[in-house]
């Protein structure tokens, strides 16, 4: 098997296979209330405390569409550069399950609210476009809990009726890396839009992964298997790896692939059959007679367009044009809306001393390292953008050295302390008075006459020794640039 950034191929004997992947992402709409009822959607509430009579499908209860969720879906469609359908229809997807109170899920089958669109991925080997087939609105089901009671399955309906967007991609992805980039990009776009918080731990974002394999160069699609409900990018990649190899092995053994739905077992790192095509549900879709077709006007859509913030692709372009950051740096800065916000705030607060390179380095270097270590999101950063900007300004105007800055940075984390205060309290101000430094250096040269002579005789390595001595004598506060200059002169 070869594995590099642009290709993911599976080799068996003389055959080289490529993997064709499409995703159905289920993204929970950010909304205070459910798709067809006014119940709350807050995560983690006590079981069955956020359930209305509609959510529990009491007799005679009727769904009423939540306009906010419709707006959220349309905004997402705009973010995916997709066709917004002015007329869409809610259908019933009929099946029985204990956590599906109505006995059907209200979804959109034939006429989704959003049609074809595009997502651009920034891969190491360049940009890659992934087509969006459609986005539709649907209700989530409740949750069946099988392990709390030895005899019974318990049902929690808090999630029942929560609005989901199902975003279906075209089978345009070829590598696990592209899948990862795609999910991250979707997540990023929706977080920019505020339409889905993208929290995979809470189940706000999960995906069904469709995988098939074919001889590289073929333009025919192989039989696909769908891996249901994978809830982390890492698991998606592992599932693809396992499943693609499983399919290739079958083909190599002369067998055929059965179109089926499979589950990924995260413990055993393998997929296994859930149900075959023959056992597939007949969902008996038909238009929900309790709901009229959903119609929106051009005006409604145009008004929503005014609400669309600058999205990652545009922001990246602006960062490159305006701040002259590299495309790589720009990609990192815009990948998450909170990172972009943080960066822009640092830039704004630095004011006339603005040094983009320094700002980028501090954010993607020191700050990211800390966040990683502490497993924090940038929105939970222990150091505010304002104080980081102050710190960078202190370096920039020569008040402190970069080295001291790192010490101060550590101290700032203890409650987002203003670096200026640390500098003053700890006396960490950089010594930049040439006269004071000259006196200090004179003394060092005096104390080390022999080494000074050796240096003059060509042992240039000794320059570092003198710098070190000067820094030591100043407790690290001496301005390193001035030290260099004075030493050169004096020696």
């Amino acid at each position, binding site marked *: 098997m070869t594995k590099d950034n642009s290709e993911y191929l599976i080799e068996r004997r003389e055959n080289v296979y490529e993997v064709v992947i499409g995703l159905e992402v289920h993204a929970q709409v950010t909304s205070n209330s459910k798709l067809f009822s006014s119940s709350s959607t807050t995560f983690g509430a006590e079981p069955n405390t956020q359930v209305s*009579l509609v959510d529990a499908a009491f*007799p*005679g209860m009727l769904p009423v569409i939540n306009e906010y969720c419709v707006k959220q879906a349309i905004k997402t469609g705009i973010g995916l550069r997709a066709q917004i359908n002015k007329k869409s229809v809610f259908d019933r997807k009929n099946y029985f399950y204990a956590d599906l109170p109505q006995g*059907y899920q209200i979804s959109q089958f034939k006429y989704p609210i959003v049609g074809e669109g595009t997502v651009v991925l920034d891969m190491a080997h360049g940009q890659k476009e992934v087509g969006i087939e459609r986005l539709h609105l649907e209700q989530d089901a409740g949750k069946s809990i099988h392990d709390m009671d030895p005899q019974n*399955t318990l049902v929690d309906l808090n999630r029942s009726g929560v609005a989901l967007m199902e975003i279906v991609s075209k089978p345009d992805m070829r590598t696990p890396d592209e899948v990862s980039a795609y999910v991250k990009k979707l997540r990023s776009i929706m977080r920019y839009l505020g339409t889905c918080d993208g929290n995979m731990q809470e189940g706000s974002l999960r995906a069904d992964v469709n995988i098939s394999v074919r001889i590289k160069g073929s333009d025919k699609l192989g039989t696909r298997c769908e891996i249901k409900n994978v809830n982390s990018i890492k698991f998606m990649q592992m599932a693809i790896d396992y499943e693609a190899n499983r399919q290739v092995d079958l083909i190599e053994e002369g067998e055929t692939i059965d179109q089926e739905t499979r589950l990924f077992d995260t413990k055993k790192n393998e997929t296994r059959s859930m149900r075959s095509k023959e056992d597939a549900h*007949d969902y008996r*879709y*038909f238009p929900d*007679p*309790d709901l009229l077709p959903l119609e929106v006007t051009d005006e409604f859509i145009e008004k929503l367009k005014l609400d669309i913030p600058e999205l990652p692709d545009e922001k990246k372009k602006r960062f490159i044009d305006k701040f002259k950051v590299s495309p790589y740096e720009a990609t990192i800065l815009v990948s998450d809306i909170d990172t972009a916000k943080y960066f822009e705030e640092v830039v704004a607060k630095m004011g006339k001393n603005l040094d983009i390179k320094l700002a980028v380095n501090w954010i993607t270097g020191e700050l990211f390292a800390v966040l990683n270590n502490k497993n924090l999101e940038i929105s939970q950063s222990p150091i505010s953008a304002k104080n980081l900007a102050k710190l960078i300004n202190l370096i920039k105007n020569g008040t402190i050295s970069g080295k001291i800055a790192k010490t101060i940075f550590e101290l700032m984390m203890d409650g987002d302390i203003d670096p200026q205060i640390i500098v003053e309290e700890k006396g960490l101000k950089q010594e930049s008075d040439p006269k004071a430094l000259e006196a200090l250096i004179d003394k060092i040269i005096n104390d080390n006459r022999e080494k000074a002579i050796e240096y003059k005789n060509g042992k240039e390595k000794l320059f570092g020794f003198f710098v070190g001595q000067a820094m030591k004598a100043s407790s690290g506060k001496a301005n390193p640039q001035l030290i260099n200059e004075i030493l050169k002169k004096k020696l």
Partner: protein
Amino acid sequence: MSDITSLTLTDLVKSIKDKKISSEETTKAFIDRGEKSRDLNAYITEDFSNALDKARAFDQKPNFDLKLPGIPMAVKDLFCTNGVKTTAGSKILNNFIPPYESTVTQNIWNEGAILLGKLNCDEFAMGSSNETSFFGSVQSPIDKDLVPGGSSGGSASALAANLTPITIGTDTGGSIRQPASFTGTVGLKPTYGSCSRYGIVAFASSLDQAGPMSKNVKDCALLQEIISTYDEKDSTSIDFKRNAYSKELTNNIKGKKIGIPKEYTVDGMPKEIEDLWTKGIEYAKDCGAEIVEISLPHTNYALPAYYIVAPAEASSNLARYDGVKYGFRSKGENLIDMYEKTRSEGFGEEVQRRIMIGTYVLSSGYYDAYYIKAQKVRKLIKNDFDEAYKKVDAILTPSTPSAAFKIGEKTNDPVSMYLNDIFTVPVNLAGLPAISIPAGVDAKGYPLGLQIIGKAFDEQNILNIAYAMEEKIEFKNKITDWWIK
């Protein structure tokens, strides 16, 4: 006041407002008669003791500005009533007490009416004779062992037998008009979207509509005025200007054009129905209406289309009765076993038949041939009416192709039972309003009704026509109280 229970709603309201009788006296009279009439099996749930309490409370603090001041009434057991058992005539909801009130019944209580109890009906409103109810068939007060029609059979029987001064039913394919016709009473199926479906146990969502049943047209207009409101809780409720139907009621229908659809002369239709229709045409002429022959060419396809659309929706609407959340549950080995046992034991034969039909017509491979085609037919039927209404203001037909039949007569022949809805079903498919008024009797003396179909939202017009014709017809229901020992 020897017989409070035989008063019309209008007279009853007047008597109470004039303080000739109290709400308590009135309520007691209906309760007494209800208790003596248990052989009719009209009630599923009596709420008599609460009704008396409410009547006394009303009398202590009467509000005569209300339209139904202290008026007791019973309603079809398809309307969810807060704290009062609501069964839809099914075993599967035998223990179900809703913690909420349907919009239609709430509108009625808001006008001062008092709930007497819940009236028998076909299970989930699926039936034309009230024989599919888990709680047993209902006797028509017209004659022993006669069906009152269905599905609002309990409502029709209770109304005709004077157990309630007025009532409400629901009509998916004729379930108000056919029992009204069978029991010599008046029943209106309003325009789809006129009365909220919120809190009504659903049968076929795109066809279901609640409506008033009464002893005369004026009472019907008053009740329609009360129950028809725009309701945001029902997405299919329509926000149109509703008339003050009772106030605006007039018998002046001079110059109104009334259409007679030739397709409603069906094979095997008894002569007495044809005669009734002819008589109806004469009455309409007498009232000054102009008779116009019209054509509704797709009428023949209405019944088959209806028996695809209605079961399809029902199969999905009834999926929620699965034993998990409320209602009847049978013990099972596992989830699927529990579903199967609960639903086989909880649903009656007719309901199961329709769930099977509905599931079948929605299945992949059959969906286009049945459901989609039925929807196309539905559109054609609607177009037929649209065309007709370019020429006429209303359409006059018989309500049913026959008078009431005996209990058990058609239970083994579902198709013949379905055929009973032949004149009423097209109206539901087109979402139009229609009223059935008593217009005569057959050879056995059983009532026969005429149906007046209106344009969408034109309830006032058909009420006026019905009101004018009612005056000419002078129908008197012959109720002998044979069931009271």
